Every structure is written in C-alpha cells, then in structure tokens.
C-alpha cells in the first residue's frame, strides 16, 4: 500500500486525529494567551517581577516535553489532563516574554499623555498600552502555536488526543508495512495544520491591529 492509498483508506481516522490535534492546541493557546497576558500585565512594571516571570517560563521550556508529560502522569493521570497542562505551560513563554517586552516598549510619553488627559489605570491599560503592545503579543502567540503543534504530538505518549497517536503507532510497529505511512501521515498532518494556523494568524493580525500602527502597508 503506498502513501496515497493509505491516506485514502484511513482518512476518516486521520481527520479525527487532526481535528483533535488542532482543537487541543487551540484551546491550550487560548488559556496560555489569557494567562500569559495576565502575567505580563501584572509583572511588566517591576524590573524583578518581569525578569522572574520570563526566567520561570523559559526554565519550563528547557524541560524535555516527554519528561514533562512523564512527570505529570503520576499526578493527573493519563489522557487529556497532562496534555492540556503541558501544552499550556509550554505555550506561556513566548507570550509572557512578548507581553512584557511589548508593554515595556510602549512610548512612556504616550503613557504620560494618557495619564495627563485623565485616564484611569485600567483605561490606560485597556485603551492604550495593550493595543500598542498587541502586535508583539500576537507574534508571541504565533510562535507559541508553532511550538505547541510539535509538542502536542508527544502528548500521545500519555494517551492524549491528536496526530501524535499516528506517529507513535508507526514507531511502535516499525518494520510493518504501514509503519512509515503512519509516521509520515502524522508528521505531514502536523505541518499542514501549523501552516493553516499561521495563515489564520495573519488574518487575525489584519483584523485586530489598527491601521495606525500596522507595519507600513497602506
């Protein structure tokens, strides 16, 4: 059976896996974005708190994902929980870092102006600082998503959802006639998903970054 025949015969299962993969990554990204931006907002104004947040998240990133999932299994069991926790933790770093960099990068004279015309702390954050920091934050989200696409494959090790199952099945049955097809289908699926997500982010950027601060293209 060649690769195309394999895809034809297994497309049902592959689509389900792909959907679950995408869905897991997407949901974890939403959580990571919210948590990451909140951490950024809370810490960016203090030198040490901001550095602590960045260092902590980058330390998490250095833990091999397989080890992380292995460590989580005894605590939260198999299946979805370790997958979600691991993905969210890994997704945090680029978002936290870019949120802090973005918020700190807002021109202080603009913050001064916002204060000076009578904006409250919250209004300043919501109407001036976050909108201006949004382009770097969105970049962080993009980077995170690319990374999670790959890491999510490892989640299959903990019986998690997604295209990783395809890859692990292939690896487990190396030598059998479909082993290579399985690994290939899983890997290519992840790549295709990653590209689709990236295209979606470009669109999101177009829609959410105001024309006044978009990179010159008008």
């Amino acid at each position: 059976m060649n690769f195309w025949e394999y895809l034809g015969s297994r497309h049902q299962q592959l689509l389900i896996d792909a959907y679950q993969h995408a869905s897991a990554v997407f949901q974890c990204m939403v959580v990571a974005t919210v948590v990451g931006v909140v951490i950024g907002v809370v810490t960016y104004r203090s030198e040490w708190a901001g550095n602590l947040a960045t260092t902590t998240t980058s330390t998490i990133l250095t833990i091999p994902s397989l080890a992380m999932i292995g460590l989580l299994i005894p605590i939260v069991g198999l299946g979805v929980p370790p997958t979600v926790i691991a993905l969210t933790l890994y997704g945090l770093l680029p978002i936290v870092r870019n949120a802090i960099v973005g918020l700190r990068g807002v021109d202080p004279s603009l913050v001064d102006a916002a204060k000076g015309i009578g904006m409250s702390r919250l209004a300043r954050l919501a109407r001036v600082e976050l909108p201006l920091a949004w382009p770097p934050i969105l970049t962080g989200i993009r980077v995170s998503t690319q990374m999670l696409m790959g890491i999510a494959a490892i989640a299959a090790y903990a019986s998690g959802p997604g295209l990783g199952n395809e890859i692990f099945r292939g690896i487990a049955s190396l030598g059998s006639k479909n082993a290579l097809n399985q690994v290939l289908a899983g890997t290519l699926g992840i790549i295709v998903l990653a590209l689709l997500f990236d295209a979606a982010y470009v669109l999101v950027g177009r829609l959410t970054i105001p024309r006044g601060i978009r990179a010159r293209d008008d």
Partner: protein
Amino acid sequence: MPETTEVAGVSGVAGVGAKGAVFGAAIELENLTKHYPGSSAPAVDSVNMQIDAGELVVFVGPSGCGKSTTLKMINRLIEPTGGRIRIGGEDVTDMDPVKLRRKIGYAIQASGLFPHMTVAQNIALVPKMVGWEKGRIRARVEEMLDLVGLDAGEFHGRYPRQLSGGQQQRVGVARALAADPPVLLMDEPFGAVDPITRDHLQDELIRLQHELHKTIVFVTHDFDEAIKLGDRIAVLRERSHIAQFDTPEAILTNPADDFVSGFVGAGAALKRLNLSRVRDVEITGYPTVIVDDPLQEIFNKLKSSGTNEILLLDRRGRPYKWLRRGDLMRARGSLARAGTLVHDTVTRDATLRDALEAVLTDNAGRVVVTGRRGEYTGVVDMETLMNSVHELLEADRLDALEHQHELEETRAEQTRHEQEGVDGGEAKA
C-alpha cells in the same frame, strides 16, 4: 489678561461642562514642593505663584530647573510632597487625580497622540470619559478640528502617522481642549517641530487664546517663545526658584538680576521690538497719486509736495511705485517705466521688528503700511521707528522704576510697622 470670569472659572472646576465655553480659572500655588526620596535637595522648592484667570503664563528656564516638574504637579502627574494647589479657589491637592486631570487640558511635546487611534478618536477621548453623548462628541470633534485650522472632513479619519509634525501638534491641542477645560497645561508643546511650523503654531495659539480665554501654563526653554506668547513670564532657576515673574516688557527692560539678564540674552532692545506692533507707532501720511490720474496732476503734486518723492497707488489703492522728481522726465512721461516698484510692505499688525527689517532693507529707509486688503494706509520710516523705540524703552524703564519703587515702599512700610510693633491696618494712610 485678568477677566471678570472668576465665577465661570470656579464652576468649570466644579464640574460644569456648560454649553457656553468655559473661561479660565485662577491657579494658585502655595509653597509647592517636590522632594524625591534619596536626594538631599528638593527638585522643586517651595514655589508660590498666583496665576490669574484667563492668563497665559510661561515657565522658562534652563533644562533641569524643575519647570516641567512644577507644571506636572498642577495636574498631579507628579504628586507634590508639600504645599497646596488651588484651581479656581478650590483646593485640588487631595482631589482624585483622575477626575482632576479631566478638567485640565494637557498638551505635550511631540503631540502625544495615540498612534492606534484616528484623529477623531484621539480628540473624542476626554469628552467620552466625562460622559458626553455621541452626537455632542461628534459635533465637538468637528468644532475642535475647525478651531485648530484643520479640515474636519479630510483629517477626521486619518491616523497620526499620516500627519505632519505641525498637524499632529494641532490635533494634540485640539484633544487637550476637547472637553472645554478651564485650564490648559502645555509642556514644551512646540519643541519638536521645525522653526517655521513652530512660528505658525505660536501664532495659532495666540489666536486661540484670544477666542477662548483659558488659563494656560506653558513650559519652554526658548526665551523668544516665552516673550512671544506670555502675558507674564516666570523665569525659573534651579529647584524652580522664581528669579522673576513679570510681563515680558518688564523682564526685557528691567531684568531682576544677572541670571535673568543672562537668560534674556543679548539684544533685549531688539527683542522688545517683537512686543510692539506697527499700529502702536505713529504712521505718517505721504503724498499719493493713483495710476489713473492725469500726468499733469502727478507732476503738480510732485512739485507741490514737500518731499521729493510721492507714492503711486494702483486702481485698488494698493501701493505700486515710488516716484522721484526726476523719474518722470527720465522715463519721458511714461508711468510704466518711471519710478521703483514697492517690493515690501507691512501690515498694521506686524511687529516693529518686522517693520525695522523692512526699513533696513529699503534703500530709502521707509516702508509702506497697508490695511487688511493690501490698501495703502501710511508710511513708517527710520526716524519714526527710532523715536518710537526710544519712547517705548523709556516708558518701560519708568514703569519698571515705579514698580520697583512701589515694592521698596511697601517693604519699607512693612519693616517700619514691624519695628514699631503697630498693627498694620491702623497706620495705613
């Protein structure tokens, strides 16, 4: 200048965004001090100042003298560590700063416009925060754009980066004035634009202030800007100590000490010329003829006039040519070839400095003064200018002396009372 708008000013601060425009409110600084922790000397040391309603006061001083800090304490962007601030008679030192700032316009260097919002959104910010309804905000945005000389239809939807520096600054001023605050603080607002644009913006601000009568506190390090704009100027030295707080005329003619005269710089008399207008000096009449007049009449006028020159006007009464006695003869009676063209004129609103410039470049040492539509109204020459300047300077000097004299007298009287231990009220004549 002080106006009888105390009541309007007070109500403005008290939170009435009334239909009619809000006039300025008086600002009073009492022992205002800022002491940053960890530094031995205060950054601003006990400033006392009374700014009248509707007055434009300029803080001027070398960089690092605390003028900006003093300004930012008025809207409490920097919290004072001591002293009181009163606006329109109301003590605002402990008021909620966010509420206070919505009553105080604030314009800064490089405009401070939010790049992610359109011009209209930027201007609408403060009215929105104080809860105006949509229709009123929309009308107000148009009105403000119009006020600062930008076409509402064209600029409404633009983003700040699509504007020139001068236009951005105008929008910045429009945003500061949008909710009609009685007080406007301007922190080196024209510091980042080119000299020509800056000149325009200054003229605009003078015009605006004529219409609006806000109380404006303006910070700059440019003394010429201070002279041009200020009703009164506070020359500040380090720690915001007031070296002199007086009218531009008084500071130019009678600087309080070496620091002030150093800051005034060379050419005080020349700078003084910027403060007077052509309409303040004597404009002399000149014999004139109109191009359509018959040649014979022009000849007669030339002969009968005491001067050896007459001014030829065009059909609309605008100055056209200077005619000397021999000119017509030499041109064989042709007006088209005779005489020299009038190339420079000044209006009655021009500063004496402009007039002097024109007189100096004119080879006969005089310049034609024109009215609003360019029509001839008279002539100013070197002699008139010299005399007027002498008179002005002399008058300034006398004023300053009198002022000083009064001050000394009150001081002497005070000392006397203190020495005699008499209660001040009774002994007063």
